[in-house]
């Protein structure tokens, strides 16, 4: 029994050390983002020779949102007088054409849709020559498989991916594409901003998480030359590179994280564009969110099992990149570590070892999980909100305690699913995130334009 108690105590101490490590890491990110030199993105490059791009939009039963993303992308390519009525409505806000349409190709990928997605895409293809839908009703379903087929059809040098619920603003295509003028850049990630923040508590809390994750975490990792992560949407990559690397693995649910590590292992740079903001629809119900985060966890942990050792022995990465990469790989394993630590401390409690639970370790443990459990500690989210100019949403920070338990539960399930995938070699089935937008609903983002509250101070006069 003494040995059991010793092991339990060692595990608790181990968990505390790990969590303190993560807390310090995020605190360093927070200070870096707030005080230190910010590494600028490539948006100031003015180049008349923009690269040809193909936009891939995987769609499975996306009739609620398909028109809106296509309208917004159309206005990126065509001058006002050449677009349809829906697009004109957006143009009232977005003003002008943005990317040369002869260098732009949009491939919405209808991935086994049974609703009106196919009809909508064909309608757009009839109106706009650069929209070339790909209808898939054979082969493997899911985003990685859809992207692979889309890439075979794509003519652009650069692939830019958007999920169907995204609302790309004017300028984002150029912002993302221009970075590929740097020959070392393999992939680029932009910033994701929820558009339906005001819907309910969940969307508000997700907005807080996103804010901390992008405004501070991703930018700080970019500043510090660590590992910014390609997130699979609002981002792009070089088609020839990814094709040469074997395209996407259709058995991995987190194809974005997998691509990040695959590119890094081959010496390519993955960069972050905080300026390239794009609106997304955050899940509006906890059930949908649970499925989404479970899928992310399963996919991320699949990547962790695959790249843990290659990352350690990689000759292409610096020591600090490897260290950050390891912490990044384990990020979806930590909630399970915490869950086990909770069981561990309960066991110690009933075994009469209250003192270790009572001591400093208990406080560190509780403090760490209250912060890290939500991926971004409270101080990181607070600073991110401050930088964003947000005044009210930060008041919801204490509510993230409920997200902690929720995340821990479903991430742990996702972890076990990834373990079973690894052991049995089974294929994962892609589960699409449900959309909440009303069909043919408001195509204009609910947030004020421009989105920054500090920018509300801009005085605009008609010329």
């Amino acid at each position, binding site marked *: 029994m003494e040995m059991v108690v010793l092991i339990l105590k060692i595990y608790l101490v181990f968990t505390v050390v790990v969590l303190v490590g993560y807390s310090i890491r995020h605190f360093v990110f927070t200070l870096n983002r707030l005080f230190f030199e910010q590494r600028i993105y490539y948006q100031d490059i003015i180049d008349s020779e923009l690269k040809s791009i193909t936009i891939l939009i995987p769609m499975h039963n996306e009739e609620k949102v398909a028109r809106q993303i296509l309208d917004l992308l159309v206005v990126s390519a065509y001058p006002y007088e050449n677009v349809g009525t829906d697009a004109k409505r957006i143009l009232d806000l977005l003003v002008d054409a943005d990317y040369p349409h002869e260098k732009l190709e949009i491939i919405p990928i209808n991935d086994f849709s049974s609703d009106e997605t196919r009809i909508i895409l064909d309608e757009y293809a009839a109106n706009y020559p650069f929209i070339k839908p790909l209808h898939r009703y054979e082969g493997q379903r899911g985003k990685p498989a859809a992207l692979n087929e889309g890439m075979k059809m794509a003519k652009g040098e650069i692939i830019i991916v958007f999920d169907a619920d995204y609302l790309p603003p004017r300028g984002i295509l150029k912002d993302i594409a221009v970075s590929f003028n740097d020959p070392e850049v393999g992939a680029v990630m932009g910033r994701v901003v929820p558009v339906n923040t005001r819907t309910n508590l969940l969307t508000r809390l997700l907005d807080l998480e996103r804010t901390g994750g992008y405004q501070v975490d991703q930018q700080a990792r970019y500043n510090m030359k660590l590992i910014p992560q390609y997130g699979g949407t609002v981002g792009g990559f070089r088609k020839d590179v990814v094709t040469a690397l074997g395209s996407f693995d259709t058995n991995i649910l987190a194809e974005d994280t997998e691509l990040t590590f695959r590119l890094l292992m081959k010496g390519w740079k993955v960069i972050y564009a905080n300026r390239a903001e794009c609106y997304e629809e955050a899940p509006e119900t906890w059930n949908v969110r649970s499925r989404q985060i479970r899928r992310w966890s399963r996919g991320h942990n699949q990547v962790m099992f695959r790249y843990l050792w290659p990352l350690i022995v990689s000759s292409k990465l610096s020591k600090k990149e490897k260290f950050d990469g390891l912490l990044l790989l384990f990020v979806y394993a930590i909630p399970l570590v915490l869950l086990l630590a909770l069981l561990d401390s309960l066991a110690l409690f009933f075994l009469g070892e209250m003192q270790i639970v009572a001591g400093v370790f208990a406080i560190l443990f509780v403090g760490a999980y209250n912060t890290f459990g939500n991926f971004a500690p409270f101080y990181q989210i607070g600073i991110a909100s401050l930088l964003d100019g947000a005044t009210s949403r*930060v008041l919801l920070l204490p509510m993230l305690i409920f997200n902690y338990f929720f995340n821990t539960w479903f991430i742990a399930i996702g972890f076990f699913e990834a373990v079973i995938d690894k052991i049995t070699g089974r294929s994962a089935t892609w589960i699409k995130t449900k959309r909440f937008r009303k069909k043919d609903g408001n195509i204009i983002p609910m947030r004020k334009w421009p989105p920054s509250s*500090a920018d509300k101070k801009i005085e605009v006069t008609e010329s």
Partner: protein
Amino acid sequence: MSKSVIYYHRAYRKITGSGWLFLIELALVTLPLSLFILFIYPFITEQMCRIAETVLSSYYLPGAVEVIRQSFIIDDVFLISIRGTHPSALVSFVNFIISLALIIFLPYAKRGKNIAIFFVFLAAINLASGLFFTLIPLEFPYSGIDFSELYVKTEICMWLFIPIILGMALLPLPAPILPKLILIMFALMYSVIFGTLRYIIFLFVISKLSVIYMALLFFAFGPLIDFVYIVGIYCFYTSRLAKKLKGSENVWKWLY
């Protein structure tokens, strides 16, 4: 359209400040406060126990509630000595069954799933307790005084950590140091007052109801809840500061 005033885009905003200056400030604020706590915790715990004794005495026979002292860290700590009530077999079993039912059914809640999962967490702790007291009630290793000791020592650790945690979170914010210092001291005072009230309630529960709830009280309503108000105080101040900084041209810098 023309813009007469253009502020920095939020993407690369930053503030003036120095990491080193922050570390110096952190040391100057947190060390004296933590040292102060270290020297006055015997006094605080004594006052806490006197209040608890006064409140609880009216519910118990004379002599059932008394204040004792033990050594802790560098000095003595004061505790309430009180007897815990062990649950009957039926109470233990009912607790076990109810907790099990909650764990099985709550994950299927259609609404408020986040709250439901939180209650699953609470039920899981109570399930362990219920199972323990159903199977091996005589093996329960703690008395009321053990729990009292656990609580008070945890509170002292919490008071020592509040200046550090809140100092780390508040000091980088672009505002004068005095309001931050006041806020940290407010958080400490709140913690002492809230901690005293909670101490009385916890002792009442384990002595009048049952020690079966000891684990639940400590793991779910102990330090975890302390972090909720610490974060609450931080976000209240950050929100106020964000409002104040809106449109302030002097605070924000760009890139360098």
